């Protein structure tokens, strides 16, 4: 994985000291809260309901064991001994104290981490496929270009005060595990018909109040031109994006208002200009330097079938169930990818304690895992496991309450922090996720239901991605009472679609029943092999509505 050189290291240390000065000016009253706000946001610091919240970037979701230990220590020293992994592959600490934050940033700098641009109206943490470098279907490791984009966009002088936040995701394969179609810019690594590698670029996707699927602005951008192309998009947006209404300020609204064709024209014009000046050609030496950090680890020459693994799977049903959902094919024979669920039944989705982080770092050492990944579905992934080690890993995970066999199943719920923490929320979301997970705890039933993605947001800003849940749940405030709407038919994968609201919402007592009702409708209608999403796409909303609202 990427390692900081002297320049990266100096940058994050100086940035922490710069923030120390800004905090001092704020505490001395030289900066108003309004003036301080963009400065703290660009260092990852939010003001929430009860406290400051620090959002730490995990670029493209990759962490070393050293970094995981460091995060555990930071969470213990400056917070309450746990953190919350988010849909942007970041880690949030929800109980930070302002005067201590500069020291926290220095501790993070020491483990090559930071909170720069995890918030604010700027380019946010670049996210990528959590199977990068391990999945068999990949054209190139998406983290190479993600790291280049991270550096290029860091404290960008022109794009640090955009109309609104800006999210970029990169996928290295046709299968989309990074939700690129619902990002401000989605980048897919592709090959053209001459066999050259390049990028397909989408623009104007997004969730939130007004969800859109992104439009393709170009089917192929040559490798050396990608920064110029992204800059062209950003400039068009910075000049023309709306600033009069925060709810209409994202690039998706601009694209919608001027139309994808006009957007393409403006971007191409700007791109030609930048390309002519040749100031933003991706430097080949830098590309190679960064790519070298993502060279695959040395793999052992292993037979693809491990007898130990096969025997353990036969002998232990719980392990076999975990393998069924949480173990994925790896590009190398004898290896596998394992998903570590942060969705134990009844727990807060995405939460991880400092003790668990340290234990996981120990397991990474024990099983020779140089890195661990955070997924946008709020789980962790060990990307390069020897199959013969999987049983031993699973036993260790069981002891840590991290072996829940539910990846992709109904209890693997994406959930924002909701009204328990968040200033913007209209309703709690964690308790709803917990209740639904309890209802569907029976693993046999979960397996019978198959892939079923529930995503919950506590407000219309959609941090819980409810529009792209097979079942989406949106918490709203109805006359001072929490109310939950159900959406069906969303997907954030390569078959992306936006869910539609079924009808009137349910109160916090009734929402889990309503979800059960939806699931029962699906099981009564499904054809062999159909997921809930497939059945919904085939039969439409009517039978679901009928059953749900029958009185």
């Amino acid at each position, binding site marked *: 994985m990427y390692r900081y050189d002297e320049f990266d290291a*100096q*940058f994050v240390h100086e940035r922490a000291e710069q923030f120390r000065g800004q905090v001092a000016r704020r505490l001395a009253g030289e900066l108003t809260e309004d*003036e301080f706000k*963009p400065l703290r946001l660009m260092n990852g610091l939010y003001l929430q309901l009860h406290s400051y919240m620090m959002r730490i970037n995990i670029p493209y979701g990759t962490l070393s064991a050293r970094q995981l230990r460091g995060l555990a220590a930071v969470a213990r020293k400056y917070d309450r001994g746990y953190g919350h992994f988010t849909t942007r592959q970041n880690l949030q600490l929800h109980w930070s104290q302002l005067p201590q934050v500069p020291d926290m940033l220095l501790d993070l700098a020491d483990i090559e981490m930071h909170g720069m641009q995890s918030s604010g109206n700027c380019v946010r943490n670049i996210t990528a496929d959590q199977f990068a470098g391990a999945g068999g279907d990949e054209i190139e490791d998406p983290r190479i270009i993600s790291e280049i984009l991270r*550096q290029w966009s860091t404290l*960008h002088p*022109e*794009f640090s*005060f955009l109309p609104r936040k800006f999210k970029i995701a990169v996928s290295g394969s046709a299968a989309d595990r990074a939700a690129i179609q619902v990002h401000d810019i989605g980048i897919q690594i592709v090959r053209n018909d001459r066999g050259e590698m390049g990028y397909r670029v989408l623009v104007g996707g997004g969730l939130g109040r007004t969800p859109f699927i992104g439009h393709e602005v170009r089917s192929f951008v040559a490798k050396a031109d990608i920064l110029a192309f992204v800059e062209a998009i950003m400039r068009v947006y910075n000049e023309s994006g709306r600033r009069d209404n925060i709810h209409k300020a994202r690039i998706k609204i601009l694209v919608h208002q001027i139309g994808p064709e006009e957007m393409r024209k403006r971007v191409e014009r700007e791109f030609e200009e930048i390309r002519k000046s040749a100031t933003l050609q991706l430097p080949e030496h*830098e590309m190679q330097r960064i790519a070298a950090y993502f060279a695959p680890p040395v793999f052992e020459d292993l037979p693809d079938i491990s007898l130990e693994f096969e025997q353990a799977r036969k002998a232990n049903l719980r392990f076999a169930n975990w393998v069924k959902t949480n173990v994925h094919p790896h590009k190398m024979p004898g290896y596998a990818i394992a998903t570590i669920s942060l969705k134990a039944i009844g727990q807060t989705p995405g939460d991880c304690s400092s003790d668990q982080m340290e234990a996981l770092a120990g397991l990474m050492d024990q099983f020779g895992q140089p890195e661990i990944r955070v997924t946008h579905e709020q789980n962790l992934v060990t990307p390069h496991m020897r199959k013969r080690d999987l049983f031993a890993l699973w036993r260790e995970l069981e002891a840590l309450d991290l072996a829940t066999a539910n990846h992709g199943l109904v209890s693997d719920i994406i959930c924002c922090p909701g009204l328990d923490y968040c200033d913007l929320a209209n309703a709690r979301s964690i308790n709803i996720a917990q209740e639904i997970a309890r209802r569907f705890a029976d693993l046999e039933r979960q397996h019978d239901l198959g892939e079923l993605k529930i995503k919950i947001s506590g407000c219309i800003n959609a941090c819980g991605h409810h529009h792209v849940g097979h079942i989406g749940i949106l918490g709203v405030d109805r006359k001072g009472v929490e109310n939950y709407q159900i959406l069906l038919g969303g997907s954030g994968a390569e078959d992306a679609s936006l869910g539609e609201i079924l009808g009137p919402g349910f109160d916090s007592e009734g929402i889990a029943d309503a979800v059960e009702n939806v699931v029962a409708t699906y099981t009564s209608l499904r054809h062999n092999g159909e997921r809930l999403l497939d059945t919904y796409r085939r039969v439409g909303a009517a039978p679901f509505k009928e059953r749900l609202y029958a009185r």
Partner: protein
Amino acid sequence: MPAERAFVTVADADPLPAEGPVIVSLKRFRSERDLLLARGERLGLRLDASESPELIGDDIHKLVLIVLQVPYFRDGRAFSWARLLRTRLGYKGELRVSGYVLRDQITFYARVGVDSFDLPRPVTEADIAAVQAEMSNVYQPSVDGRETIWDLRARLRHSPIS
């Protein structure tokens, strides 16, 4: 040689002074272009945050000062206007930012080609030097032509002593 007279900002409703350099709005410039150019004085133009410098047209090289007005520090359009002026439009004159701008944004403005500031809360040369010293290096190229971290890496790699 006598010191250059200072620019006077003239509101759209006010008459032009008999002599001396003025700063006028784009609207005024368009309606009184010939008159303004015939004065034989240095001429400055101020742009609202929503006005692209491309609206100025070919007369841009007759201007010695362009003022980008920033109503509120969160409005970041002037960063792109400055960049546009210095690259596509090839503007070589003085470029000033005027309005509610934070001290902490000065480095960004300087990078995209702004060379003077007219701010309500006075910012001294020492302030500017202090903010600019906070971060030693930059990652991305911009108008200022500063050596980027990418350049530094390439240079160090090729230098015989490294």
